[in-house]
């Protein structure tokens, strides 16, 4: 069943009508409704295209968090072969909010690491809604170290509301773990490519996305704070999230203008959730393309490239 977002209600009505007609026709084989149903279909398609062409930042947030959007696990299963999960931080635990391991993209071995949100109640709880604890970041550090030692490029898939704000997470050094992961991203002498596939939530995202090349899906977001959080602090009213989403400039389009990301990966009409296979394939092409170019660079050049990229970031503001 399609999960409709609030702003998709008019669409839900049209698609619902078409579905009703077809259900009636199935019950009475002599009824011919195909013409009417097809008309509704084309009306729905136009509406869908229009809605998604002009998504405002708050709607983008909703699409980025859409439960049917392909998640890290879906990308890993579809894009990579021989995926071999590697678990644990060798210290305390294995964090299920972060998945990662060796895999092949085509023939090329890579280390893939990403946040996984889960797709139903059971897996969402198991994955802690994609909110990593220190163990998750320390696992990522360990995997990046392996990749660095054996000269394997790293691909990170970012999709997290943020790092987990819990008692144990704080006690075990959530800040230190994030800081070290960011530092590790800057240190490794292998290509590091990052794709923000849904939500890039604050420090929890930066820890994976301090990469040579960062791409964002067309309707994904990347922000210092959630619009709800920002609204409750600056507007003293969590209901002002629309205004906050607007002011924060968290869309792929704004981030590209600011020079924070390198590429926007287009999504199928109606968002990645409406055509998961196409969305996943497009992401795969972008990763392959980035890696082809980066693999020609020396270890030193890759490290320098990353440093210079972040040092010069923000110099031009929206004029970039």
């Amino acid at each position, binding site marked *: 069943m399609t999960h409709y977002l609030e702003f998709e209600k008019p669409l839900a009505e049209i698609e619902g009508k078409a579905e009703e007609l077809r259900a009636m026709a199935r019950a009475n084989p002599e009824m011919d409704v195909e013409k009417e149903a097809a008309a509704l279909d084309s009306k729905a398609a136009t509406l869908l295209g229009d809605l998604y062409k002009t998504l405002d930042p708050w709607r983008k947030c909703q699409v980025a968090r859409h439960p049917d959007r392909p998640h890290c696990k879906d990308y890993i299963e579809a894009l990579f072969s021989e995926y071999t999960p590697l678990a644990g931080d060798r210290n305390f635990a294995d964090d299920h909010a972060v998945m990662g391991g060796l895999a092949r993209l085509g023939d090329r071995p890579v280390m893939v690491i990403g946040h996984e949100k889960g797709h139903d109640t059971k897996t969402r709880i198991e994955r802690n809604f994609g909110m990593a604890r220190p163990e998750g970041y320390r696992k990522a550090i360990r995997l990046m170290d392996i990749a660095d030692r054996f000269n394997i490029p790293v691909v990170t898939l970012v999709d997290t509301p943020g790092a987990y704000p819990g008692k144990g997470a*704080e006690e075990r050094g959530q800040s230190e773990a994030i800081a070290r992961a960011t530092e590790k991203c800057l240190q490794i002498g292998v290509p590091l490519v990052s794709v923000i596939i849904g939500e890039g939530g604050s420090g929890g995202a930066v820890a994976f996305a301090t990469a040579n090349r960062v791409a964002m899906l067309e309707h994904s977001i990347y922000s210092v704070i959630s619009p709800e959080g920002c609204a409750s602090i600056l507007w003293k009213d969590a209901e002002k999230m629309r205004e906050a989403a607007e*002011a924060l400039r968290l869309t792929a389009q704004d981030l590209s203008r600011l020079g924070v990301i390198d590429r926007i990966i287009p999504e199928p009409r109606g968002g990645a959730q409406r055509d998961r296979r196409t969305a996943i394939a497009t992401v795969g092409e972008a990763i392959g393309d980035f890696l082809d170019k980066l693999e020609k660079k020396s270890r030193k050049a890759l490290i320098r490239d990353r440093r210079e990229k972040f*040092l010069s970031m923000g110099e031009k503001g929206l004029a970039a």
Partner: protein
Amino acid sequence: MNWISNYVRPKINSLFSRREVPENLWTKCDECGTMLFHRELSGNLNVCTSCDHHMGITPHERFAALFDGGVYAEVKVPEPLADPLHFRDQKRYPDRMKAAQKSTGSPEAMLVAQGEIGRTPIVAAAQDFSFMGGSMGMYVGNAIIAAAERAVSAKLPLILFSAAGGARMQEGILSLMQMPRTTVAIEMLKEAGLPYIVVLTHPTTGGVTASYAMLGDIHIAEPNALICFAGPRVIEQTIRESLPEGFQRAEYLLDHGMLDRVTPRGKLRDELISVVRMLLGLPPAVMGDLPAPAPETPETAATPDPVEPTEPAAKQV
């Protein structure tokens, strides 16, 4: 009202009506409620003389007490683009900036300086919590990069005093990007083999803790400082239970292995001198209040920036 009174009055006002008498001669300690006379309080580095509660201290006050004779040279910080996102909440970001500049008298939330402590040349950076919660935006990022660059070029250790609510939301994603940016700066120091000491002061939270504040060779915190990634209120809302006594305070972090030491403000200077000199393989320092270094010392002479000697701090005997 004619144009002359309009034009002249503000200037005269600002010349005569302020300064002379400090507005608040007495400060109430937020912890024990004791009324403290301003001179007594500043003489004790803004630490309550009755309960040892550490109150906020501005970078200028801190540096005046830290450097020999209270003398240091400010390191220039490249000015970033103002209001890069054209951010507006209930107020415009440039208006918030102006208000903060007016109330603090500082251009931004971090001060970088070079000078000597116990005759040991260092670079120091201090964050100003009174300036928009010390929040980390492009300027703070630039300040840390400038501090690291100066430390590397002059081959000096860097001591950083952190105090911030986190990233500056009004700079959106660009404030978040200061996490990797400042991490690059710390990398440069480490590569050059220079000590990087972080003094975590109240409060150090959010993206600041999750970047440069937790990447020091040595972490020292002031007593009872709140140090965390997510604040206690956010955590209570998430886990829906109350948190233990002293949670996320300096002593709690020390117990959980996140800090090397918790040191009262009055003892920080001697401890920093001692640690830095040992890390650099220098002989023990002459401790105590030292006069400003002679102007001809090579360290000062090598400083290209104009030396702005500040008033020697009021020292207690």
